[in-house]
Protein backbone atom coordinates (compact mmCIF):
# COMPACT_ATOMS: atom_id res chain seq x y z
CA UNK A 1 0.00 0.00 0.00
CA UNK A 2 1.54 3.25 -1.06
CA UNK A 3 2.18 5.78 1.67
CA UNK A 4 1.57 8.51 -0.91
CA UNK A 5 -2.04 8.99 -1.92
CA UNK A 6 -4.64 11.58 -2.71
CA UNK A 7 -6.35 13.21 0.24
CA UNK A 8 -9.97 13.95 -0.59
CA UNK A 9 -10.50 17.68 -1.03
CA UNK A 10 -12.71 19.01 1.72
CA UNK A 11 -11.66 16.44 4.34
CA UNK A 12 -9.49 17.07 7.41
CA UNK A 13 -7.08 14.14 7.74
CA UNK A 14 -5.85 12.97 11.14
CA UNK A 15 -2.15 12.53 11.94
CA UNK A 16 -2.23 8.93 10.75
CA UNK A 17 -4.03 9.88 7.54
CA UNK A 18 -1.41 12.35 6.34
CA UNK A 19 0.47 10.85 3.39
CA UNK A 20 4.22 10.37 3.83
CA UNK A 21 5.94 13.76 3.89
CA UNK A 22 2.69 15.42 2.85
CA UNK A 23 3.46 14.18 -0.66
CA UNK A 24 0.48 13.95 -3.01
CA UNK A 25 0.00 12.49 -6.47
CA UNK A 26 0.58 14.85 -9.40
CA UNK A 27 -2.90 14.14 -10.72
CA UNK A 28 -4.08 17.67 -11.38
CA UNK A 29 -6.78 17.48 -8.70
CA UNK A 30 -6.43 21.26 -8.32
CA UNK A 31 -9.03 21.31 -11.06
CA UNK A 32 -11.58 20.79 -8.27
CA UNK A 33 -10.80 24.32 -7.11
CA UNK A 34 -13.40 26.64 -8.65
CA UNK A 35 -11.51 29.79 -9.51
CA UNK A 36 -14.50 30.91 -11.59
CA UNK A 37 -15.87 32.61 -8.49
CA UNK A 38 -13.09 35.21 -8.81
CA UNK A 39 -14.54 36.83 -11.94
CA UNK A 40 -15.64 40.44 -11.98
CA UNK A 41 -15.97 40.42 -15.74
CA UNK A 42 -16.67 37.55 -18.13
CA UNK A 43 -15.73 36.64 -21.73
CA UNK A 44 -18.57 36.51 -24.25
CA UNK A 45 -18.02 34.13 -27.16
CA UNK A 46 -19.49 35.15 -30.52
CA UNK A 47 -19.37 31.82 -32.32
CA UNK A 48 -20.30 33.37 -35.65
CA UNK A 49 -17.30 35.69 -35.67
CA UNK A 50 -14.87 33.01 -34.46
CA UNK A 51 -12.31 31.71 -36.97
CA UNK A 52 -10.97 28.96 -34.65
CA UNK A 53 -7.47 30.44 -34.75
CA UNK A 54 -7.14 28.99 -31.21
CA UNK A 55 -5.11 31.96 -29.92
CA UNK A 56 -7.62 32.38 -27.07
CA UNK A 57 -7.20 28.75 -26.09
CA UNK A 58 -3.42 29.16 -26.17
CA UNK A 59 -3.31 32.41 -24.22
CA UNK A 60 -5.75 31.52 -21.47
CA UNK A 61 -3.69 31.14 -18.28
CA UNK A 62 -6.41 28.95 -16.80
CA UNK A 63 -7.14 26.52 -19.65
CA UNK A 64 -10.70 27.82 -19.69
CA UNK A 65 -11.35 27.92 -23.42
CA UNK A 66 -12.96 24.62 -24.33
CA UNK A 67 -11.99 23.38 -27.78
CA UNK A 68 -13.50 20.30 -29.41
CA UNK A 69 -12.27 18.99 -32.73
CA UNK A 70 -10.39 22.19 -33.38
CA UNK A 71 -13.39 24.41 -32.69
CA UNK A 72 -13.85 26.84 -29.81
CA UNK A 73 -17.08 25.64 -28.28
CA UNK A 74 -17.33 26.97 -24.73
CA UNK A 75 -15.87 28.89 -21.79
CA UNK A 76 -15.15 26.90 -18.63
CA UNK A 77 -17.25 28.92 -16.21
CA UNK A 78 -15.88 27.02 -13.21
CA UNK A 79 -12.33 28.17 -13.82
CA UNK A 80 -12.28 31.32 -15.96
CA UNK A 81 -10.93 34.19 -13.83
CA UNK A 82 -12.13 36.89 -16.23
CA UNK A 83 -8.73 38.38 -17.09
CA UNK A 84 -9.70 39.31 -20.64
CA UNK A 85 -6.51 38.07 -22.30
CA UNK A 86 -8.61 35.88 -24.60
CA UNK A 87 -10.38 38.95 -25.84
CA UNK A 88 -7.17 40.97 -26.13
CA UNK A 89 -5.51 38.21 -28.17
CA UNK A 90 -8.56 37.18 -30.20
CA UNK A 91 -7.45 36.78 -33.81
CA UNK A 92 -10.80 37.44 -35.46
CA UNK A 93 -10.91 40.59 -37.62
CA UNK A 94 -12.46 43.07 -38.03
CA UNK A 95 -14.89 42.01 -35.29
CA UNK A 96 -13.52 40.15 -32.26
CA UNK A 97 -15.13 36.84 -31.49
CA UNK A 98 -14.33 37.26 -27.78
CA UNK A 99 -15.43 40.36 -25.89
CA UNK A 100 -15.66 41.09 -22.18
CA UNK A 101 -18.84 41.94 -20.28
CA UNK A 102 -19.08 43.45 -16.82
CA UNK A 103 -20.04 41.11 -14.02
CA UNK A 104 -18.69 37.64 -13.32
CA UNK A 105 -21.90 35.66 -13.34
CA UNK A 106 -23.06 34.18 -16.59
CA UNK A 107 -26.68 34.60 -17.65
CA UNK A 108 -28.72 31.51 -18.41
CA UNK A 109 -28.90 32.64 -22.01
CA UNK A 110 -25.10 32.61 -22.34
CA UNK A 111 -25.04 28.95 -23.20
CA UNK A 112 -21.40 29.02 -24.36
CA UNK A 113 -20.45 29.20 -20.65
CA UNK A 114 -20.28 25.69 -19.26
CA UNK A 115 -19.77 24.28 -15.83
CA UNK A 116 -17.18 21.51 -16.04
CA UNK A 117 -17.21 20.23 -12.45
Amino acid sequence: MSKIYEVKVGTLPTVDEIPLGGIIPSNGNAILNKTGTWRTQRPILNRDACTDCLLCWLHCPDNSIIVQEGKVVAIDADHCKGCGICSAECGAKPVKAMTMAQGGRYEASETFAKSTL
Partner: protein
Amino acid sequence: MAINLKELVKKDIKFTSGQRLCTGCGPALMAKWTMLAAADYNVAMSSATCCVEISSVVFPMSSWKVSWYHNAFENAGAVIGGIEATYKALKRKGKMDKEFKFIAMGGDGGTYDIGLQSLSGMAERGHNALYICYDNNAYMNTGIQRSGATPKYAWTTTSYVGDAYQGKQQRRKDLVSIMAAHDIPYVAQASIGYWRDYMTKVQKALATPGPSFITVYAPCWRGWRSEANATVELGRLAVQTNYWPLFEVVDGKWQMTYTPRETKPLAEFLKPQGRFSHLFKPGGEPLMADFQNEVDFKWDQLQRRVKSSL
Protein backbone atom coordinates in the same frame (compact mmCIF):
# COMPACT_ATOMS: atom_id res chain seq x y z
CA MET B 1 8.25 18.17 -32.51
CA ALA B 2 6.31 20.64 -34.62
CA ILE B 3 4.72 23.57 -32.87
CA ASN B 4 1.35 23.67 -34.48
CA LEU B 5 -1.73 24.91 -32.65
CA LYS B 6 -3.95 22.28 -34.22
CA GLU B 7 -1.65 19.58 -32.82
CA LEU B 8 -1.01 21.31 -29.50
CA VAL B 9 -4.70 21.63 -28.76
CA LYS B 10 -4.99 17.84 -28.66
CA LYS B 11 -2.37 17.53 -25.90
CA ASP B 12 -3.24 17.04 -22.26
CA ILE B 13 -1.96 20.18 -20.54
CA LYS B 14 -0.05 18.97 -17.52
CA PHE B 15 -0.55 22.26 -15.68
CA THR B 16 -4.24 22.32 -14.90
CA SER B 17 -6.72 25.05 -14.12
CA GLY B 18 -7.70 25.53 -10.49
CA GLN B 19 -4.29 26.97 -9.66
CA ARG B 20 -4.38 30.08 -7.52
CA LEU B 21 -2.29 32.47 -9.62
CA CYS B 22 -3.80 35.90 -10.16
CA THR B 23 -6.19 36.47 -13.01
CA GLY B 24 -4.21 37.24 -16.16
CA CYS B 25 -0.91 35.90 -14.77
CA GLY B 26 2.08 35.91 -17.13
CA PRO B 27 3.98 33.13 -15.30
CA ALA B 28 0.88 30.92 -15.58
CA LEU B 29 1.28 31.11 -19.35
CA MET B 30 4.95 30.21 -18.98
CA ALA B 31 4.04 27.11 -16.99
CA LYS B 32 1.30 26.08 -19.41
CA TRP B 33 3.46 26.55 -22.51
CA THR B 34 6.41 24.76 -20.89
CA MET B 35 4.20 21.74 -20.28
CA LEU B 36 2.86 21.91 -23.84
CA ALA B 37 6.34 22.19 -25.33
CA ALA B 38 7.47 19.21 -23.22
CA ALA B 39 4.24 17.25 -23.71
CA ASP B 40 5.86 14.32 -25.49
CA TYR B 41 8.50 13.74 -22.81
CA ASN B 42 8.62 12.24 -19.34
CA VAL B 43 9.32 15.28 -17.22
CA ALA B 44 10.58 15.72 -13.65
CA MET B 45 10.67 19.22 -12.25
CA SER B 46 12.17 21.16 -9.40
CA SER B 47 10.68 24.48 -8.42
CA ALA B 48 11.98 27.38 -6.40
CA THR B 49 9.64 29.00 -3.92
CA CYS B 50 7.85 31.44 -6.20
CA CYS B 51 4.45 32.55 -7.46
CA VAL B 52 3.93 29.49 -9.61
CA GLU B 53 5.02 27.14 -6.84
CA ILE B 54 2.96 28.59 -4.03
CA SER B 55 -0.15 28.81 -6.18
CA SER B 56 0.04 25.47 -7.92
CA VAL B 57 0.42 23.00 -5.07
CA VAL B 58 -1.67 23.79 -2.00
CA PHE B 59 -2.28 20.68 0.06
CA PRO B 60 -4.15 18.53 -0.81
CA MET B 61 -4.33 19.84 -4.40
CA SER B 62 -1.75 19.81 -7.16
CA SER B 63 -2.07 21.50 -10.56
CA TRP B 64 0.72 19.36 -11.95
CA LYS B 65 0.52 16.07 -13.80
CA VAL B 66 4.28 15.52 -13.80
CA SER B 67 6.62 14.82 -10.88
CA TRP B 68 7.40 18.12 -9.22
CA TYR B 69 9.57 18.97 -6.23
CA HIS B 70 9.51 22.23 -4.36
CA ASN B 71 12.25 22.17 -1.75
CA ALA B 72 13.35 25.74 -0.92
CA PHE B 73 13.78 29.19 -2.40
CA GLU B 74 17.36 29.30 -3.64
CA ASN B 75 18.11 25.79 -4.77
CA ALA B 76 16.00 24.75 -7.75
CA GLY B 77 19.30 24.37 -9.61
CA ALA B 78 20.86 22.13 -6.96
CA VAL B 79 17.71 20.03 -6.52
CA ILE B 80 17.31 19.33 -10.24
CA GLY B 81 21.03 18.47 -10.31
CA GLY B 82 20.44 15.88 -7.61
CA ILE B 83 17.43 14.41 -9.40
CA GLU B 84 19.40 14.19 -12.64
CA ALA B 85 22.43 12.68 -10.89
CA THR B 86 20.36 9.88 -9.37
CA TYR B 87 18.72 9.32 -12.76
CA LYS B 88 22.17 8.89 -14.29
CA ALA B 89 23.21 6.49 -11.52
CA LEU B 90 20.06 4.40 -11.92
CA LYS B 91 20.50 4.32 -15.68
CA ARG B 92 24.11 3.26 -15.35
CA LYS B 93 23.08 0.45 -13.01
CA GLY B 94 20.44 -0.75 -15.48
CA LYS B 95 17.59 0.22 -13.15
CA MET B 96 16.09 2.92 -15.35
CA ASP B 97 14.89 2.36 -18.88
CA LYS B 98 12.91 5.55 -19.44
CA GLU B 99 14.09 8.81 -20.96
CA PHE B 100 13.48 11.89 -18.88
CA LYS B 101 13.75 15.62 -19.29
CA PHE B 102 14.64 17.62 -16.19
CA ILE B 103 13.29 21.13 -15.78
CA ALA B 104 13.97 23.58 -12.95
CA MET B 105 11.66 26.55 -12.66
CA GLY B 106 12.01 29.73 -10.66
CA GLY B 107 11.13 33.40 -10.63
CA ASP B 108 13.67 36.16 -11.06
CA GLY B 109 13.94 36.51 -7.29
CA GLY B 110 14.87 32.90 -6.72
CA THR B 111 17.25 32.90 -9.68
CA TYR B 112 19.04 36.24 -10.04
CA ASP B 113 19.66 36.80 -6.36
CA ILE B 114 19.35 34.08 -3.77
CA GLY B 115 19.41 31.29 -6.34
CA LEU B 116 22.38 32.42 -8.40
CA GLN B 117 24.90 30.22 -6.61
CA SER B 118 23.05 26.97 -7.03
CA LEU B 119 22.15 27.77 -10.65
CA SER B 120 25.79 28.51 -11.38
CA GLY B 121 26.85 25.27 -9.71
CA MET B 122 24.34 23.29 -11.74
CA ALA B 123 25.66 24.86 -14.95
CA GLU B 124 29.31 24.40 -14.02
CA ARG B 125 28.83 20.73 -13.23
CA GLY B 126 27.14 20.12 -16.57
CA HIS B 127 23.90 18.60 -15.33
CA ASN B 128 21.54 17.63 -18.14
CA ALA B 129 18.71 19.95 -17.16
CA LEU B 130 16.89 23.07 -18.32
CA TYR B 131 16.52 25.97 -15.91
CA ILE B 132 13.67 28.30 -16.78
CA CYS B 133 13.68 31.66 -15.05
CA TYR B 134 10.40 33.48 -15.49
CA ASP B 135 11.15 37.13 -15.03
CA ASN B 136 8.35 39.29 -13.70
CA ASN B 137 10.88 41.85 -12.49
CA ALA B 138 10.45 41.57 -8.70
CA TYR B 139 9.75 39.31 -5.74
CA MET B 140 6.11 39.21 -6.71
CA ASN B 141 5.10 36.23 -4.55
CA THR B 142 5.88 38.13 -1.36
CA GLY B 143 4.42 41.43 -2.49
CA ILE B 144 6.36 43.17 -5.24
CA GLN B 145 9.76 43.73 -3.63
CA ARG B 146 12.72 44.66 -5.82
CA SER B 147 15.04 41.97 -7.14
CA GLY B 148 18.28 42.05 -9.09
CA ALA B 149 16.09 41.77 -12.20
CA THR B 150 13.97 44.82 -11.44
CA PRO B 151 14.60 47.57 -14.01
CA LYS B 152 16.13 50.85 -12.88
CA TYR B 153 13.52 53.42 -11.81
CA ALA B 154 10.81 50.81 -11.28
CA TRP B 155 8.50 51.34 -8.35
CA THR B 156 8.45 48.36 -6.00
CA THR B 157 7.57 48.01 -2.35
CA THR B 158 11.25 48.17 -1.42
CA SER B 159 12.11 50.87 -3.95
CA TYR B 160 9.34 53.38 -3.60
CA VAL B 161 9.03 56.57 -5.60
CA GLY B 162 9.37 59.48 -3.19
CA ASP B 163 11.07 62.80 -2.76
CA ALA B 164 14.49 61.41 -1.91
CA TYR B 165 14.56 58.46 -4.31
CA GLN B 166 12.50 57.62 -7.36
CA GLY B 167 12.26 53.88 -7.67
CA LYS B 168 15.08 51.35 -7.96
CA GLN B 169 18.45 53.03 -8.13
CA GLN B 170 20.41 50.28 -9.83
CA ARG B 171 20.36 48.81 -13.30
CA ARG B 172 19.17 45.26 -13.59
CA LYS B 173 21.57 42.32 -13.64
CA ASP B 174 22.30 40.72 -17.00
CA LEU B 175 21.80 37.11 -16.04
CA VAL B 176 21.67 35.80 -19.59
CA SER B 177 25.24 36.99 -20.15
CA ILE B 178 26.30 35.43 -16.86
CA MET B 179 24.83 32.11 -17.93
CA ALA B 180 26.35 32.39 -21.41
CA ALA B 181 29.70 32.95 -19.71
CA HIS B 182 29.35 29.46 -18.21
CA ASP B 183 29.78 28.21 -21.78
CA ILE B 184 26.76 25.93 -21.50
CA PRO B 185 25.40 24.71 -24.85
CA TYR B 186 22.12 26.64 -24.88
CA VAL B 187 21.05 29.95 -23.37
CA ALA B 188 18.06 31.96 -24.55
CA GLN B 189 15.90 34.96 -23.82
CA ALA B 190 12.18 34.70 -24.59
CA SER B 191 8.94 36.50 -23.85
CA ILE B 192 5.31 35.66 -23.10
CA GLY B 193 4.49 38.01 -25.97
CA TYR B 194 5.90 35.48 -28.43
CA TRP B 195 4.53 32.03 -27.73
CA ARG B 196 6.00 30.20 -30.66
CA ASP B 197 9.45 31.63 -30.04
CA TYR B 198 9.24 30.53 -26.39
CA MET B 199 8.05 27.00 -27.09
CA THR B 200 10.66 26.57 -29.82
CA LYS B 201 13.33 27.58 -27.36
CA VAL B 202 12.05 25.18 -24.71
CA GLN B 203 12.09 22.32 -27.20
CA LYS B 204 15.53 23.27 -28.44
CA ALA B 205 16.84 23.37 -24.87
CA LEU B 206 15.28 20.01 -24.01
CA ALA B 207 16.83 18.46 -27.09
CA THR B 208 20.29 19.82 -26.19
CA PRO B 209 22.34 17.58 -23.90
CA GLY B 210 23.84 19.36 -20.93
CA PRO B 211 22.71 22.41 -18.99
CA SER B 212 20.50 24.99 -20.63
CA PHE B 213 19.01 28.23 -19.41
CA ILE B 214 16.05 30.24 -20.65
CA THR B 215 14.80 33.47 -19.20
CA VAL B 216 11.27 34.36 -20.25
CA TYR B 217 9.70 37.75 -19.70
CA ALA B 218 6.47 36.97 -17.86
CA PRO B 219 4.65 40.22 -17.08
CA CYS B 220 2.92 40.57 -13.74
CA TRP B 221 0.27 43.21 -14.38
CA ARG B 222 -0.48 43.49 -10.65
CA GLY B 223 3.08 44.26 -9.68
CA TRP B 224 3.60 46.50 -12.69
CA ARG B 225 0.35 48.36 -12.03
CA SER B 226 -1.25 47.66 -15.38
CA GLU B 227 -4.40 45.81 -16.50
CA ALA B 228 -5.18 42.10 -16.29
CA ASN B 229 -5.66 41.76 -20.04
CA ALA B 230 -2.39 43.52 -20.89
CA THR B 231 -0.05 40.64 -19.98
CA VAL B 232 0.67 39.33 -23.45
CA GLU B 233 0.72 42.78 -25.07
CA LEU B 234 3.27 43.98 -22.50
CA GLY B 235 5.37 40.93 -23.34
CA ARG B 236 5.22 42.01 -26.98
CA LEU B 237 5.94 45.69 -26.39
CA ALA B 238 8.99 44.80 -24.32
CA VAL B 239 10.42 43.11 -27.42
CA GLN B 240 9.26 45.68 -29.95
CA THR B 241 10.90 48.52 -28.03
CA ASN B 242 14.23 46.61 -27.91
CA TYR B 243 13.96 46.52 -24.12
CA TRP B 244 13.76 42.73 -24.11
CA PRO B 245 15.38 41.31 -27.26
CA LEU B 246 14.66 37.75 -28.34
CA PHE B 247 17.86 35.83 -28.90
CA GLU B 248 19.72 32.66 -28.13
CA VAL B 249 23.32 31.64 -27.53
CA VAL B 250 23.97 28.27 -29.15
CA ASP B 251 27.38 26.81 -28.32
CA GLY B 252 28.65 30.31 -27.65
CA LYS B 253 27.22 31.85 -30.82
CA TRP B 254 24.85 34.73 -30.22
CA GLN B 255 21.94 34.96 -32.66
CA MET B 256 18.69 36.90 -32.79
CA THR B 257 15.53 34.84 -33.07
CA TYR B 258 13.38 37.86 -33.85
CA THR B 259 14.19 41.42 -34.77
CA PRO B 260 11.42 44.00 -34.86
CA ARG B 261 11.10 45.55 -38.28
CA GLU B 262 10.52 48.92 -36.67
CA THR B 263 11.54 49.72 -33.12
CA LYS B 264 8.67 51.22 -31.16
CA PRO B 265 9.35 54.11 -28.80
CA LEU B 266 10.19 52.95 -25.27
CA ALA B 267 7.40 55.10 -23.86
CA GLU B 268 4.83 52.81 -25.49
CA PHE B 269 6.07 49.93 -23.34
CA LEU B 270 6.45 51.99 -20.14
CA LYS B 271 3.24 54.08 -20.28
CA PRO B 272 0.77 51.26 -19.53
CA GLN B 273 2.77 50.38 -16.39
CA GLY B 274 1.97 52.37 -13.26
CA ARG B 275 5.35 51.41 -11.82
CA PHE B 276 6.95 53.85 -14.28
CA SER B 277 4.36 56.60 -14.00
CA HIS B 278 6.90 59.00 -12.47
CA LEU B 279 8.86 58.91 -15.74
CA PHE B 280 5.91 60.61 -17.41
CA LYS B 281 5.46 63.32 -14.80
CA PRO B 282 7.28 66.66 -14.82
CA GLY B 283 10.88 65.99 -13.83
CA GLY B 284 10.74 62.49 -15.27
CA GLU B 285 12.50 63.38 -18.53
CA PRO B 286 16.08 62.72 -17.34
CA LEU B 287 14.96 59.36 -15.93
CA MET B 288 13.33 58.44 -19.22
CA ALA B 289 16.44 59.53 -21.11
CA ASP B 290 18.65 57.41 -18.86
CA PHE B 291 16.33 54.45 -19.32
CA GLN B 292 16.54 54.84 -23.10
CA ASN B 293 20.33 55.01 -22.83
CA GLU B 294 20.39 51.73 -20.99
CA VAL B 295 18.14 50.06 -23.58
CA ASP B 296 20.35 51.37 -26.38
CA PHE B 297 23.52 50.30 -24.60
CA LYS B 298 22.31 46.75 -24.07
CA TRP B 299 20.92 46.52 -27.62
CA ASP B 300 24.22 47.66 -29.13
CA GLN B 301 26.14 45.25 -26.89
CA LEU B 302 23.90 42.41 -28.05
CA GLN B 303 24.22 43.32 -31.73
CA ARG B 304 28.00 43.43 -31.43
CA ARG B 305 27.96 39.95 -29.95
CA VAL B 306 25.64 38.70 -32.71
CA LYS B 307 27.89 40.25 -35.34
CA SER B 308 31.05 38.72 -33.89
CA SER B 309 29.30 35.33 -33.81
CA LEU B 310 28.69 35.30 -37.56
